[in-house]
């Protein structure tokens, strides 16, 4: 290899992304070429020096600010939806007739219609009040609501409960237990997947970590298994390696999942 070519590869050499063969080519070249060796040495020195800038953790304030921003954003969105509804009414105004006779007829017609509809729809204002209460809800309220929704028979309600848990910053044990038991025993695959996503947010909690690892052996759906494996890898949970290994030995496990588990083990042991 020429000097120019070798030097072009130096920074990639430092990132560790080169193949074994390429690395060896560079090593052979610098062993013989003084200029290139000095260049590589000086680059390596500063590259290593950069290592003093270790990864740091932001303060808790950042998380608090993010979640309150998200909450505000959601409220603002709901406000917009409400306003859009109002905008619709103002457009209806253009349909108002000019001639008094027609105005009278329309008013009368609307009055009758109003009486009929009014009887049927008295429920609506109550519903809106409930919605508003939901928006204003404090964390604890959301929490108990989430728990009770997850207990419901209807799949969509259970899903709603899980979605609600996304917005909680500090879920209590009861909710975490609920999410874990949903993950292990809910009949619907989609709901179990949603539970994986929700639990991902709380993976710092020791109970959740253990629960997620234990759950691997209890799942039969390849989708959920894949989601759990991905999760273990993304949170770099080394303790999951054993559970992944036993998945490899189990009979009847989808071969694609076995592949994924194997890759997961590699990435976690790296």
């Amino acid at each position, binding site marked *: 290899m020429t000097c120019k070519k070798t030097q072009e590869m130096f920074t990639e050499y430092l990132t560790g*992304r080169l193949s074994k063969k390429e690395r060896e080519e560079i090593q052979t070249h610098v062993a013989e070429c003084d200029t290139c060796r000095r260049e590589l040495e000086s680059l390596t020195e500063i590259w290593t020096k*950069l290592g003093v800038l270790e990864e740091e953790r932001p303060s808790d304030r950042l998380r608090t600010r993010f979640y309150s921003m998200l909450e505000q954003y959601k409220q603002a969105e709901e406000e917009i939806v409400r306003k859009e509804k109002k905008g619709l009414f103002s457009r209806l105004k253009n349909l108002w007739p000019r001639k008094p006779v027609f105005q009278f007829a329309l008013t009368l017609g609307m009055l009758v219609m109003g009486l009929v509809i009014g009887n049927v729809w008295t429920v609506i204002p109550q519903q809106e009040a409930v919605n508003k209460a939901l928006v204003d809800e404090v964390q604890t309220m959301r929490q108990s609501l989430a728990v009770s929704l997850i207990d419901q028979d209807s799949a969509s309600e259970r899903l709603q409960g899980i979605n609600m848990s*996304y*917005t909680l910053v500090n879920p209590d044990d009861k909710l975490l237990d609920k999410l874990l038991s949903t993950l292990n025993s809910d009949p619907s695959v989609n709901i179990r997947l949603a539970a*994986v996503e929700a639990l991902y947010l709380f993976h710092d909690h020791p109970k959740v970590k253990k629960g997620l690892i234990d759950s691997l052996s209890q799942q039969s759906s390849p989708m959920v298994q894949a989601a759990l494996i991905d999760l273990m890898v993304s949170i770099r949970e080394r303790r999951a390696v054993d559970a992944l290994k036993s998945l490899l030995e189990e009979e009847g496990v989808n071969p694609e999942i076995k592949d994924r588990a194997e890759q997961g083990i590699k990435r976690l042991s790296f």
Partner: protein
Amino acid sequence: MESLSDSAIMEKVRDGQVEKLAILFERHHVKIFNLFLRLTGSHNLSEDLVQDVFIRILKYRSTYEGKGKFTVWMYRVARNVHVDHLRKNKGTYNLEDQFEEPESEEDSPMHALEQKKDKELIQKALSQLPVKKREALILSRFQDMKYKEIAELFGCREGTIKANIHRAVKQLGEIYLELQGGVPS
């Protein structure tokens, strides 16, 4: 099988499930925070910028197309946030603010002092690199991004990135040496 990929989650956020942004926040905020920390050297400022990134992701969520890697898109937003910040402040930093340190556990006071000095020096040297070179170098050194991805982010050829990072490391070495000469040891 893609239920947990960043991209799949961002698509859900785009389509109205904004609360799922929390998952992406949990996955990436520390990385973005550290990107800004290395770019600016300031903790407080970096936290503000991270918050800006997630506000923008929400604001422009409808523009997410789901092509390519989510992180490339996210870093593009982060770069814009940083560039806008520089534009607003015309590159002038309050030096007092710039090198503040969180309290760290220290094994020996002398060692900690040395390390702190080292850190300040390298951070100072970094801040003297031209912005683009600084960004490319940090993305490659710390953010685990491939040249191909950085090139996609900057909208240029992979070869250009490779050459620029090489030059950036060299230049950083020169600046560092110069600064070191100015500091009594």
